[in-house]
C-alpha cells in the first residue's frame, strides 16, 4: 500500500504552507495510506463535525491548527457545537463552557462558516451531483451522497478539518464511482400507498433499512416519486444511526437511481430484501425503549428542524400551550427567520424551547431528572437512552404535540394496523 503525494503536496507536508497545513497533510496522508488510497484528490467543500466538545484534547488540537495558521481552503460549514450561543439553553460547568467555546471559536477563526447545524444542506450548503467533497456527521454524509449526489466518505473528527485546510481527501470508498453502485435490492412495494405520504413512516423505514443493510449499498424500490426533502432527511438520519449507511438509493427519487436497474449498474443484485408490511408495527416499536403512559418531555429536530417542519408544528399547535418541557433543535439561520417573522415569540408563548447551534443529545439541555420522552426523530430515538438516560417513545409530530398537552401519551395506532 503506497500513497503517492504530488511534489506540491510533499512541499506542504514539509511546511511550505505553514505548520497547520503541514500537520494536516501528515495526518491526511497517513490516514489515506491506512485506508489503501493511492493518492489525494481535490474537494470543493467541507462540513465539519469536529467542533463539538467531547473533552479537552479536541480543543488543543483545534487551537494548534489555528495557531499554526490554519485556514480552510474550500467553503466549509460547521456541524453542531457544544453550546447554544443564540438561546443559551445549555447547562455547563465553567470549565466545560470555556472549553466548548474555545473549540467553537478556533474553528470559526480558521474560516469555517458559523452555521452550527447538522442540516447544512438546508442552510444553503448544497454541492452539485458528482462533485467531490469532504463531509462529516452521519446524517449530513448520507444526505450529501444520496440526495445531492455529491461524493464523500464519512469523515470524522480531526480528519474533516484536515481535508478542509488542504482542500483534499484520500481517493477511496464513495469518492470512486465504482463503489457507489447498489448491490442490494430493497423491495418495499408491498407498503400500502396510504402510508407513503406520512412523515411518520420515514424514520421507521430508515431505521429498518440501516439495521438490515449494515454497510452495504442498497436501492429501495416501491416509494413514491414525490417524497419530500424532509422525508429523505429523516430516512437517511435514521438509517445512518442504526447502520453504517453513507449512501442509499431510492428508485425514481435520488439522482443516481433514475431506475432500479441504473442504481444496480445493470447488474443483478447480490441479494434482495423484502419488507413485509405485517412487520411494520414491530419495526416501529424498535424505536421505543419505554412503555410509560406518561412522558416528561418532547424533543424534536434531529436532524435540525427545517422552516417547513416548524410550519407543520405551528399548524398542529394551533395556538395551544404545551404542558411539559418541549424542545426543538434547529440551526441559527432558521432561528433568525423565525424571529424576523415574529414566529419565535409565538412558539415561546406555546411553551416551545428553541435550541440553536447544538442539540439535546450532545449537550446537557434536558431537565436533569430523567424520565420518558417522546420524539418523531429516528436519530434521537437511537441515541437518547445512552446519551441522556431518558427512555424514548417514538411517535409522529402530531403524536408529540398531542401528548405534550398534558403529558399523557397519545399515539395514532391506526396508522400501523
Amino acid at each position, binding site marked *: 500500500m503506497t500513497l503517492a503525494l504530488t511534489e506540491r503536496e510533499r512541499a506542504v507536508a514539509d511546511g511550505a504552507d505553514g505548520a497547520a497545513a503541514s*500537520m494536516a497533510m*501528515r*495526518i491526511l496522508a*497517513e*490516514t489515506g495510506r*491506512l*485506508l*489503501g488510497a493511492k493518492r489525494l484528490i481535490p474537494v470543493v467543500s467541507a462540513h465539519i*463535525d*469536529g467542533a463539538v466538545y*467531547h*473533552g*479537552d*484534547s*479536541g480543543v*488543543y*488540537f483545534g487551537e*494548534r491548527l489555528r495557531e499554526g495558521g490554519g485556514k480552510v481552503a474550500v467553503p466549509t460549514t460547521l456541524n453542531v457545537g457544544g453550546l447554544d450561543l443564540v438561546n443559551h439553553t445549555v447547562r455547563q460547568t465553567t470549565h466545560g463552557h470555556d472549553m466548548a467555546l474555545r473549540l467553537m471559536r478556533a474553528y470559526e477563526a480558521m474560516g469555517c462558516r458559523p452555521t452550527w447545524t447538522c442540516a447544512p444542506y438546508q442552510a444553503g450548503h448544497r454541492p452539485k451531483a458528482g462533485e467531490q467533497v469532504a463531509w*462529516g456527521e*452521519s446524517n449530513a454524509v448520507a444526505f450529501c451522497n444520496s440526495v445531492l449526489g455529491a461524493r464523500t466518505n*464519512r*469523515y*470524522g*473528527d*480531526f*480528519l474533516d478539518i484536515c481535508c478542509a485546510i488542504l482542500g483534499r481527501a484520500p481517493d477511496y470508498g464513495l469518492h470512486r464511482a465504482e463503489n457507489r453502485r447498489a448491490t442490494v435490492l430493497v423491495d418495499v412495494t408491498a407498503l400500502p400507498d396510504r402510508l407513503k405520504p406520512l412523515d411518520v413512516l420515514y424514520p421507521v423505514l430508515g431505521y429498518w433499512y440501516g439495521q438490515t443493510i449494515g454497510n452495504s449499498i442498497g436501492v429501495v424500490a416501491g416509494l413514491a416519486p414525490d417524497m419530500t426533502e424532509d422525508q429523505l432527511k429523516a430516512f437517511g438520519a435514521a438509517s445512518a444511526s442504526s447502520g*453504517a449507511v453513507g449512501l442509499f438509493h431510492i428508485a425514481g427519487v435520488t439522482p443516481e437511481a433514475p431506475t432500479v436497474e441504473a442504481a444496480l449498474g445493470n447488474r443483478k443484485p447480490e441479494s434482495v430484501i423484502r419488507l413485509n408490511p405485517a412487520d411494520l408495527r414491530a419495526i416501529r416499536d424498535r424505536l421505543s425503549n419505554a412503555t410509560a403512559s406518561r412522558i416528561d418531555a418532547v424533543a424534536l429536530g434531529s436532524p435540525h428542524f427545517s422552516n417547513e417542519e416548524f410550519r407543520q408544528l405551528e399548524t398542529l399547535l394551533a395556538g395551544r400551550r404545551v404542558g411539559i418541557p418541549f424542545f426543538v433543535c434547529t440551526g441559527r439561520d432558521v432561528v433568525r427567520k423565525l424571529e424576523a417573522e415574529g414566529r419565535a415569540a409565538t412558539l415561546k408563548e406555546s411553551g416551545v424551547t428553541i435550541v440553536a447551534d447544538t442539540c439535546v443529545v450532545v449537550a446537557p439541555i434536558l431537565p436533569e431528572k430523567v424520565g420518558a420522552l417522546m420524539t418523531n426523530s429516528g436519530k434521537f430515538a437511537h*441515541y437518547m437512552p*445512552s*446519551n441522556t438516560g431518558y427512555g424514548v417513545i417514538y411517535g409522529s409530530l402530531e403524536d408529540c404535540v398531542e401528548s405534550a398537552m398534558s403529558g399523557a401519551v397519545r399515539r395514532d395506532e391506526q396508522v400501523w394496523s
Partner: protein
Amino acid sequence: MSAERRSNLRGDVQIAGTAEGKVLKLRQPISFWGGVDQKSGRIADPRHPDHPASVKGTVLVLPGMIGSSSSSYVMAELMMDGNAPAALILPEPDAILALGVMVAAEMGWGSIPVLLLPRAEQAALETGMRVRIAENGLIQGVK
C-alpha cells in the same frame, strides 16, 4: 498454546511501536464514542459483555470495528490523559482509532502500536495473557 507458536504471531504494522501489557480481548465490537468513558478508559456501555473492564494499559484486541467517527476524539482524549490502551490489535484496516493515535502523536501525547491481525489469528490471544509487541509487529508471550 506453545511458546513456539506464540513467537510466530505477527500483526501487520499500521502504526509502529513497542508495548507490553495484559491482553483484553473484547467479546464484542465497541464504539469508543458512547462505549468507553473518555475520562477513565472504562467500558461504559452496560450492554457490552466486557463492561466495566478498563482498556487502560491493555493490549486491546478488537473483534470488529463499529460505531461513530467521534471515536477518534475519545482515543485522543485517552492518549492525552494517559488512559489509553498500551497497544491496539484490529481485525481489519480502520482509520478511526488509528487517527486518534496519530493526532496524539502530533500533539506530543505519545504513541502506541496499532497492528492488524485477522480474527482467526486473534484466537491465539486470550484475556489476561501478558504479551510484548515489537517494532516489526511480532507479538510474544511474556512469562
